[in-house]
């Protein structure tokens, strides 16, 4: 049985600074040497003061996620200023929300951990990516495998409730054995949470440019599938079952209670360059998603002019929300609560797709199962999870007129 997930909103704070820009990364990042870094805390304070009056959701924020970029590149006193400003303008859950912080292994010291703990950080998420020095060089990371192992030990010793590590698989030339060794190393270090991302080559990154020139490519589909299945099977056997396509936790208590909000349309407020926000529908307006200026200079510039740095927005009707619920739900091992989908968006997914579901069941892509309360769920199997994007596209989402 799962606890009923919290419907309280989450707060996302984007800290764009990085000591070097990784060749695969397509997030909004800026070099840590940028003078913007010294102004950043006051800019964030300005943004939250502008954003708070417009945030209508009465429920207190119960998660705060400091992501990036590399939040560990911002001095702890600046992080404290940002959090203080948020606490001043926004309603935080009591005694305190669950705070997440992303950090690079090279920034993890007992002292830094102590100051982050002092800020109320309960999940430390480490950008380990690999334990192999060769792979780390390829990925443009500044740390070594030894640094990574030390950082995990330090973080665990510092008493964070959840230590999470990010790993990347599907590197050029990586064999199943290589990757299994990485997973075994991770498991032996015993962080409570793992995110394993397949290397994705994005246009506009250094890898993207190399790919365009034919110097680099993602793995062939069959190899991707092999590594994907290996990851899920290995970690499940080791005691870190998946709860999402790329996320694995040692028990439900360590699943990311912040990221979950993205996947089930719980509202969230995002501050900082490129951050996205979602507000729920209420009596007067439909659900709305908006996003900030992506580049730090533009984001800063708008704030300097006294404006909110919003770049765009979209209104989400039942049709859009249902489509998102489908594509997001099929990425989770819990699957889609069919009664909930009908209640929220008026979509009877099984009725509209009976032959499809029968075929997908035959093919072992999905199962339909009832939970203890008798609610029916559409649940992707492992092979279904691997093709969640195609699965989502296969369903007919006809809404009643």
């Amino acid at each position, binding site marked *: 049985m799962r606890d009923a997930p919290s419907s309280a909103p989450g707060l*996302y704070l984007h800290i764009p600074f990085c000591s070097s820009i990784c060749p695969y990364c397509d997030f909004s990042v800026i070099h840590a040497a940028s003078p913007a870094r010294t102004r950043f805390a006051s800019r964030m304070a300005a943004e939250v003061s502008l954003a708070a009056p417009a945030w209508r959701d009465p429920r207190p924020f119960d998660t705060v996620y400091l992501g990036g970029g590399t939040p560990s590149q911002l001095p702890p006193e600046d992080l404290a200023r940002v959090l203080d400003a948020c606490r001043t303008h926004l309603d935080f859950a009591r005694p305190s929300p669950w705070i997440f912080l992303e950090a690079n292994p090279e920034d993890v010291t007992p002292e830094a951990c102590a100051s982050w703990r002092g800020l109320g950080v309960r999940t430390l998420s480490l950008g380990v990516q690999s334990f192999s020095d060769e792979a780390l060089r390829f990925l443009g990371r500044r740390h070594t495998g030894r640094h990574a192992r030390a950082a995990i030990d330090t973080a665990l010793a510092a008493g964070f409730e959840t230590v999470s590590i990010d790993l990347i698989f599907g590197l050029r030339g990586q064999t199943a054995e290589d990757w299994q060794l990485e997973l075994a190393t991770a498991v032996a270090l015993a962080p409570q949470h793992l995110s394993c*991302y*397949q*290397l*994705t080559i994005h246009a506009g990154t250094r890898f993207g440019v190399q790919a365009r020139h034919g110097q680099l490519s993602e793995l062939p*589909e*069959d190899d*991707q*599938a092999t590594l*994907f299945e290996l990851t899920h099977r290995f970690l499940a056997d080791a005691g870190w079952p998946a709860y999402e*396509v*790329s996320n694995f936790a040692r028990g439900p208590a360590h699943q990311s209670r912040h*990221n979950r909000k*993205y*996947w089930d349309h719980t509202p*969230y407020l*995002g501050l900082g360059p*490129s*951050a*996205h*926000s*979602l507000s729920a529908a209420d009596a007067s307006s439909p659900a709305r*998603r908006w*996003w900030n200026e992506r580049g730090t200079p533009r984001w800063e510039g708008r704030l300097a002019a006294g404006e909110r740095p919003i770049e765009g927005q*979209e209104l989400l009707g039942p049709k*859009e929300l249902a*489509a*998102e619920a489908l*594509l*997001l739900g099929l*990425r989770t091992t819990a699957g889609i609560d069919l009664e909930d989908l009908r209640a929220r968006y008026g979509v009877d997914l099984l009725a509209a797709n009976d*032959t499809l579901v029968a*075929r*997908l069941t035959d*093919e072992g*892509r999905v199962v339909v199962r009832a939970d203890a309360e008798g609610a029916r769920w559409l649940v992707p199997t492992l*092979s279904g*999870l*691997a*093709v*969640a*994007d*195609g*699965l*989502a*596209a*296969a369903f007919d989402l006809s809404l009643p007129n």
Partner: protein
Amino acid sequence: MDHIRNFCIIAHIDHGKSTLADRLIQRCGGVEDRDFRDQILDSMDLERERGITIKANTVTLPYTARDGKTYELNLIDTPGHVDFSHEVRRSLMSCEGALLVVDASQGVEAQTVANLYLAMEFGLTVVPVINKIDLPSADIDRVMEEIDRDLGLDPFESVQVSAKLGTGIDDLLEAIVTKLPPPKGDPQAPLRALLFDAQYDVYRGAVLLVRFFDGTLKAGTRVRLMHSDAEHKVEEVGNQRLKRVPVPELSAGEVGYVLAGMKSLAGLAIGDTLTEADRPAAEPVPGYREAKPVVFSSIYPMATDDYEDLTKALEKLKLNDASLIYEKDSSAALGFGFRCGFLGLLHLDVVQERLEREYDLSLILSAPSVRYRVVLTNDKEVWVDNPTFYPDPMSIKEAYEPYIKATIMTPERYLGSVMELCRERRGVETTYNYLAAGRMDVVSQLPLAEVLFDFYDRLKSITQGYGSFDYELLDYRLGDMVKVDILVNGEKVDALSQLVHREFSRPRALRYCERLAKTIPRQQFKIAIQGAIGGQIIARTTINPFRKDVTAKCYGGDISRKRKLLEKQKEGKKKMKMVGAVEIPQEAFVAVLRTEDEDEG
């Protein structure tokens, strides 16, 4: 009649026929310089682009020669492809002389020889023209030698020009007047005028281009078309300049246009003879042949919504292309369309391109087919050009397929490959002759169906572009045809059925299966693609389902983008054709039905 010269220009592709024609028109003041569009004669965009003339155009040029007399030069343009060989012959028949263009750097080529023979068949006086003498690579001495040796013409009779720069054009005009003979004929005799081309004019309907052999014609006369046996009253006769210029009368030896109140080209047959209804000629001009469609294909709009547009486009096209025939057709996979008949593959190609370009339509064409004669067990005879209507094999007693006599000219070094190609395509009685040094003429009797499937491209490729090909229909012969169906997850895709000789059924079916397997995107399920004759499976491929497509990350900033991608995918699916619960993109049909053969290169 002494002041008239009727001539055409014949050339290998790219040897500069159109440019030369333009220069002659310009020099004779047929057009103001500022109005001058290059290559006036090739008026259709398609012709300009391909550099080949599809529909012949004709123009009358006034020319004052060095002897002080004014001549009427009738330049009769000829289409440049075998599908229109009947029209070419009618055009040549209307001339007394021909300018045979040879590129000063390329020299005499296979088609040059073929053209010369054709001109000689019609008894034309031939003046060789060496063009492109301005090119640095021009080798006039060598070309003169080739004209002597390969063409058997007197090289010192040739005229050297650069059509591009206008060099030598005056000499050429003088040669036309002095070397080509004037026409003969009796203006008093009963009217005999050869219809060698017809054009469609939006305001005036059919414009008949005719060569007068005997008699005289003026407006108001009732004329009869001797083969189609239709009568019309002549409204206007005149010279075809760049515009039409009416004249009081046209008579023996002249070339001009006739307007006779015909609303479209339907029913007009190139090669027909006009005569006076009240005083008919005893015999028509010889050489008439009915232009019959020999290649059939179904045309479907890519988007079913475009069916109405396709209907209108075909109606318009038909107005100036009397040889195009069509009727309604429908397919379970591709919806409504038309079954069309064409004079040949190039004709099919031209129609397709005109529909796509001039009418902005995206089309799918089914595999081209010939027309079979099928004798049923009850001794009834049926003609079938559409696989959908091919009778059940149990009810067929005998089936006959059309054969052609193919004439292929090739440099000697490719003889082996050309013979092999003919053998592969079930050619019989293949023979060859030496034409001139290093040149061969291969004659083979081939089933037309085997020529439809990428024969011409293969010939070009094995002869490195030097081979030329001409054909005429011979007869119908007993054949062993089978209908090959393509099944996707057990369901027949009707638009992909085709009639094939039994010997080729398996490779052809396999090729279709493989092309489909390449172009149908992977789906959530395994897809079986099979080729079958009746219930017997003769080829098979499978498309394995997706194994991994999920993106690694999906957080706050990724969700909108993912949803939009999903919406786009769903939009794309609407355009796909569903066969046996499998989504088949339109491109798959296009790829499968391509006749050229990229797979084997």
